[in-house]
């Protein structure tokens, strides 16, 4: 007799494995729903997992870029503010130089102007040694200490490094986070030699104090006036540079935000479990599971032994 039969053992075995695989499917879907992640381990989808790793790495490095950008932003804002103060001081020095250029002044009056110029020199010196957000010299490049020091003659000397290092902003972009003192304080004077604002102010003050006569004093004041104007121009140019760097940081920050949004979207697309789809699939699996459980109960209760009497 050849017929297609199933042994009772095979029937139970098959039902068991079917129901088991259905409930494990339901369990997987449930864990996807509760974790919100489609991937439990890398082998669920190796390519997606590798991509997710790369995205997570970019994300974590991008956070450091953000921190760097904030630091550069703070330093440049500080530099901008200090430069404005410096500009105010130079303008005041120009006013004083204009007064001093007048031939009607007495020696005492010139001495008074010289005294104020000395004060201005001191405050400029203090400003040029301003500190950045980390407590280092703002205009000293990468120097460990001050940017300017007074030499034996009381003259401010630049002791910082020649340049400021760049901070990476991500995506291969970088920004210089400040300026060195000479970059905005030094210029070529009227007489063709290199000088800086503080030296000019000091020289004028010295000339006014020396009391060598009206002609010499007014001459020195006129020269200082020209030099101070050049200094102010240099400073204004530097302020523009600082402003444009701040703009650059803002631009890269916007770009970083955009990229980070793109990354989040990609992460959600690759690794996130879509709620609607997962819910529907879970419902479907549960329905099939219930149906197969019900049919198993019905079939397994069918026994010829119950029917034969």
């Amino acid at each position, binding site marked *: 007799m050849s017929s297609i039969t*199933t042994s009772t053992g095979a029937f139970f075995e098959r039902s068991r494995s079917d129901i088991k695989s259905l409930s494990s499917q339901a369990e997987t879907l449930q864990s996807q729903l509760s974790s919100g992640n489609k991937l439990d*381990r890398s082998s669920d989808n190796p390519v997606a997992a590798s991509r997710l790793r790369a995205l*997570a790495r970019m994300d974590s490095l991008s956070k450091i870029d953000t921190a760097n950008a904030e630091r550069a932003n703070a330093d440049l804002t500080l530099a901008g503010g200090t430069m404005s103060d410096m500009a105010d001081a130079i303008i005041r020095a120009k006013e004083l130089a204009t007064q001093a250029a007048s031939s009607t002044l007495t020696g005492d009056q010139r001495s008074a102007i010289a005294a104020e110029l000395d004060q201005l020199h001191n405050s400029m010196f203090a400003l040029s040694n301003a500190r950045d957000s980390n407590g280092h010299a703002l205009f000293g490049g990468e120097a460990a200490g001050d940017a300017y020091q007074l030499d034996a003659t009381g003259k401010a000397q630049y002791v910082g490094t020649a340049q400021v290092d760049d901070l990476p902003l991500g995506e291969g972009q970088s920004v210089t986070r400040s300026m060195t003192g000479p970059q905005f304080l030094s210029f070529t004077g009227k007489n063709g030699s290199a000088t800086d604002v503080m030296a000019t102010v000091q020289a004028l003050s010295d000339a006014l104090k020396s009391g060598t006569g009206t002609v010499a004093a007014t001459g020195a004041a006129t020269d200082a006036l020209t030099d101070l104007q050049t200094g102010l121009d240099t400073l204004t140019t530097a302020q523009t540079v600082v402003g444009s760097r701040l703009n650059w940081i803002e631009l890269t920050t916007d770009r970083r935000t955009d990229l980070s949004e793109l990354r989040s979207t990609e992460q959600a697309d690759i690794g996130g479990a879509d709620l609607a789809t997962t819910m529907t699939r879970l419902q479907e699996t549960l329905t099939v599971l219930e149906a197969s459980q019900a049919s198993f109960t019905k079939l397994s209760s069918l026994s010829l032994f119950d029917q034969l009497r």
Partner: protein
Amino acid sequence: MASDLLSIGKSGARVARAALEVTSNNIANASTEGYVRRSVAVSEVANGVSLTTPSAINLSGARITGIVRNADTFRQSEVRRTGSDAARAAAEVQGLENVEAALDQTGVYDSIVSFEGSLKQLLSDPTDGSLRAQVAEDGRTLAQTFNTAAQSLTSAAKGLQFEAQDGVDQINTTAGELARVNLRLMRSTDSSSDQSALLDQRDTLLQKLSGQADITTTINPDKTVSVMLGGPTGSALVSGASANTLAMSTAANGTLNFTVNSQAVTLSSGAIAGKAQALVELSNARTALDGIAASIASTINTAQASGVDLQGNAGQPLFSGNGAASLKMVASGGSAIATAPAGAAANSRDVANLTAMRSAFDGADPAGQMDTLLFTVSSAVAGRTVTRDALDTIASSAKVSLQSQAGVNLDDEAVNLMRYQQAYQASARVMQVASDLFDSILGIR
């Protein structure tokens, strides 16, 4: 000898009773592992025709010629072959999943990225104590996660080796039992119920063997079985009443070698083979992980050597060790990181050496290498899982096909029970008739 109604009835009743016994035995063993459905082979007792009385009626009833074991040897060998493949694939996937977990869930990749990030952040202020400390601590975490991953790999390897040794022991025990079954089979009578039970035992033992290793079986005319290990040209494990011993040795890199009677044998399926294959993959993964650890240590240490630390002293190595297990952070603190180039003064904010270190680190690309390693292992797991599922389906359909032919169907047995009960009652009736006939002869007056 003429026919005898009473003895015909008796033989019929005996056959029906034996069939009922076999049926009830089938019902009792409906869910016994390895039990093959039995049935009774019945034939007519033919006495032949006597030459002296050629026209006489010579009927002698029925007799049992044997117990039939409804086993199809082809289906059985298919179950063994496919089961062996499925067991190998399952063992390999399980081993690889352990490797994946060891590399993936210990967070080696994340720790490399953190270290990379803290080096980058140090650029913003190379003399900042907290940023330096962060680099040192992230370096320590990096070394520790490498150590953890290496330990996880070692314990995964230990587990696999232990399980493989257990499998080898099981094979040897099973082979010994099989040899004893062979011996008893040689002595048992053909088609007896004793022999059927022995055959069941033989097939169950063979299936157990095939789950652990790939076996080639030859059924001899006396129903004993010869077993070859590692393909048809492999080594004999069981022949007749003697069994050889399978032995396992572990190489230095953790991979396994097998011998039968000190003769090398290659296993291509079965759980042991799967474990051996997983151990090979594990050893490869460990080599790759060691390579990454060594490249991190040498890249950072080389860069350290060309710079000066916070105090202005020549940079000392940050890491010691040349493998994942031995990688160790040896710097005493953050100040040991050589950010400034050689010749720079103490507290220098010059980041030239840090920049060089970062670009060397980027060049060595440990994060990329780790990603590649993780991808290799996880895609191996994913690919092998597909293979395992396919082999599992094949094996279970072979099993179901054997079961549907050799297994017990309770409905069939219910019908048989009723049929043989009726046959028994009918034979009893025949005896009743014979008695009535005899009585009616005696009743003649």
